[in-house]
């Protein structure tokens, strides 16, 4: 899901523990076997150079923007490292939303009632999803969708929450363009505000236009964007701890 919304929720926990330590702790605490296995796969140390980090680009299409009111409709993910995206490992699932599909969201992602009629409940594919995420750092464009939605969905089905670090390619763009609104002088000269939406951000790196609003294609688009961001603004040696949130 890509959007230009301001980050309204802060990350739920501001533990002093590092992510690898938290994963070890969570692995012990988790009662659900699927979650346990996810945590046991571990998390790379914050000082790991980004070139050595296994990533997974993740994107959801949802019925709306509020995880407590809306549901996930589809999930796309693509495993990758900074030098290679493996299309062969990409996955896409349609899942049955718990809440009604709004006409407005249909117009956005194009998934209709007929499509999801046959779709499984997220619980049935949770195994697969968690296995695909295990041991990898998720990459999203706009962190306030995927993590909170997955958290609510997992909690609703297992009674437990799920925690993991993410790389947010939109946050990276926001960081690179702190003054996105042109000042009065620039406005006078016709300067447009800098957009950090997924498609617009990709343009700045010479990445091709992909049709938006398909979870798998958007995931792929964010994976490519991160590759480009690191090559242009960071280094393969940049520690992952500098980028994750």
């Amino acid at each position, binding site marked *: 899901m890509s959007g230009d919304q301001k980050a309204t929720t802060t990350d739920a926990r501001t533990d002093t523990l590092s992510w690898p330590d938290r994963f070890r702790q969570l692995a012990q605490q988790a009662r659900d076997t699927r979650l346990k296995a996810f945590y046991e796969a571990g998390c790379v140390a914050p000082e790991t150079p980004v070139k050595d980090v296994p990533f997974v680009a993740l994107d959801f299409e949802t019925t709306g923007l509020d995880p407590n009111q809306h549901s996930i409709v589809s999930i*796309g993910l693509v495993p*990758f490292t900074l*030098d*290679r*995206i*493996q*299309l*062969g490992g*990409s*996955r*896409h699932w349609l899942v049955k939303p718990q809440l009604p599909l709004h006409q407005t969201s249909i117009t956005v992602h194009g998934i209709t009632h007929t499509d999801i009629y046959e779709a499984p409940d997220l619980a049935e594919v949770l195994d697969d999803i968690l296995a695909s995420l295990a041991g990898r750092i998720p990459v999203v464009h706009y962190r306030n969708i995927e993590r909170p939605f997955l958290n609510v969905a997992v909690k609703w089905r297992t009674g437990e929450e799920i925690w993991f670090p993410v790389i947010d390619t939109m946050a990276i763009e926001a960081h690179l363009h702190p003054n996105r609104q042109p000042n009065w002088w620039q406005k006078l000269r016709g300067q447009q505000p800098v957009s950090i939406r997924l498609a617009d951000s990709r343009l700045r*790196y*010479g*990445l*091709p236009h*992909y*049709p938006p609003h*398909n*979870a*798998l*294609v958007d995931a*792929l688009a964010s*994976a*490519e964007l991160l*590759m*480009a961001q690191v*090559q*242009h603004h960071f280094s393969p040696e940049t520690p992952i701890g500098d980028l994750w949130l």
Partner: protein
Amino acid sequence: MQAELIEIRNHLAQHAPFDEMPEETLDKVVSSIEIAYFRAGAEILKFGERNAYLHYIRSGAVEMYRRSGELYNRLGEGEIFGQYGLLMSKTVRFPVKAIEDSLIYLIPEEIFQYLWENDDNFTDFVEVEDRSRLRSALSRREKSNQPMTARVTRLISREPVTAPNTVRLQEAARIMTEQGVSALLLMDESSDQPRLSGIITDRDLRTRALSEALPSETPISDIMTDGLITTTTNAFIFEAMLTMLHNNVHHLPVMENDRVRGVIALSDIVKHESQSSLYLVSNIYHQQDVKGLKQLSKEVPNTFVRMVNEDANSHMIGSAMAGIGRSFSQRLLELGEEKLGPPPVPYCFMALGSMARDEQLVVTDQDNAMVLDDSFDPAQHDEYFLALAKFVSDGLAACGYAYCTGDIMATNQKWRQPLKVWKEYFADWIENPKAEALLNSNIFFDLDGIHGRTDYTEELKGFIAGKASNSQRFLAMLARNALNRTPPLGFFRTFVMEESGKQAKTFNLKRRGTAPVSDLIRVHALACGSKAQNTFNRLKAIGETKLIPEDGVDNLRDAFEFIAIVRIRHQALAIEAGREPDNNVRPEDLSPFERSHLKDAFQVVSQAQKFLRFRYNAQVGRNVG
């Protein structure tokens, strides 16, 4: 493949060699793809490194280099690289660098191998040698044009009608009427094996017998045509057509070894190739004045377009157009002689340049000259020949063959000279070669007698062939001139790419394409003492002497054919669109097929120029665009 990746599949499906792949195969390719991103300036493939992927440019642009660091190619969206290494040694032969931020789809070698083994179109496209790719492209084209490649036997509808050559005129006419044929073959039956000795046609009966009021008892051998022009059973219809065009005959006996299998008439071919160039040519000879010829000349572009649409190859089209031009000249000379009276001394009217090479197209000017008998006396005779030359030249101009800007026309006194003076000219060009002067006289080394004492031209051809092959300085100078015009390196997006890396909007397919080839082939042909004029025939002659290795000959032939046919099609399209045809091409006017194979052809020409420089030790002169 995940159905959601259809966007990637669609992109591949728009570009060769993926554009003709079945969907299941494409799905297999997409599922295997790995994606990499390279910033502008980043090295993608290093020389000698192992490469296990076919690279497909999804966005951005790259440059390929030779090992020497010389620019080899510039590629953009939808183009592939890395196949050379995959096919050969699995190591990189041409290093590649991103010149823009580039997103590359990588297709692993197992899939490449699979495609290579299972998809012929893919295999053709990624062939290691550019040359073989060009050949397969040409042969695919040829396979698809059945009508033009039909053999003459298809036109033979009956056993030949023959008579002994001892029959009398009336008997011959009776046989022809009874059998309903327009030509009768006359056999010499004096030996055990009857032998074809002559032919008599309806037209002959009219012009040679009736109009002369010959007695019906006249022996047929008195008026029959002997020294027959024939064709063979394995000849193509277009070849028979060219033979008719060239010799202005309307009937051709078809021979199988020493036996006559049948006769084909002009009308048979006209029926087969209705509205063909032959029809136009036969009409030319029926015109009684310049006005009539001018009217008829408006048909020339249509005939040209028709041949292109029938998928004729460049040799057929070039010969047919030259045949038409030759016929206009011949008819004008006949009309001129009718008007001015018979020539005071014998002479030969020569065609020069593309007409002489049988490589004429629609955009052409007239290049001609006169070789006069050595008894020519300027004071007494030149007035006549100037008037005749002027009549022909003006007539040609009226028929769309523009005056030669370099004044290489028989109207120029310098090019209206006795045979002995022509020999002096050629001796001087060959024995005292000067680059500048040779540049202007190049055109005289493509010559063909088209009217009158054509043996004068044959004598000159022999004279040139004898002298040229022995003059290393002349050949070196000619080679140097042949290197003045080079082909472009290739194309990049909407630009023409030069070896220097510079880009241009258009290029001239004649100056940068066909002309460099015919120039360099002329040098080799003169070096091996060939009297052939046509580029393909010269190549054949060169091949026989082993002056260039055999595959070199084949490659050049393919390259020339391909460039020529693209040029021809470009002109045909302009004519159909109601535009003035020319030789300037913009890359966006070319199909992806044409672009990719033109690049291969340019490569061949470039190699051939390097060989020419080396072979004749030619110093490189100035560069003419």
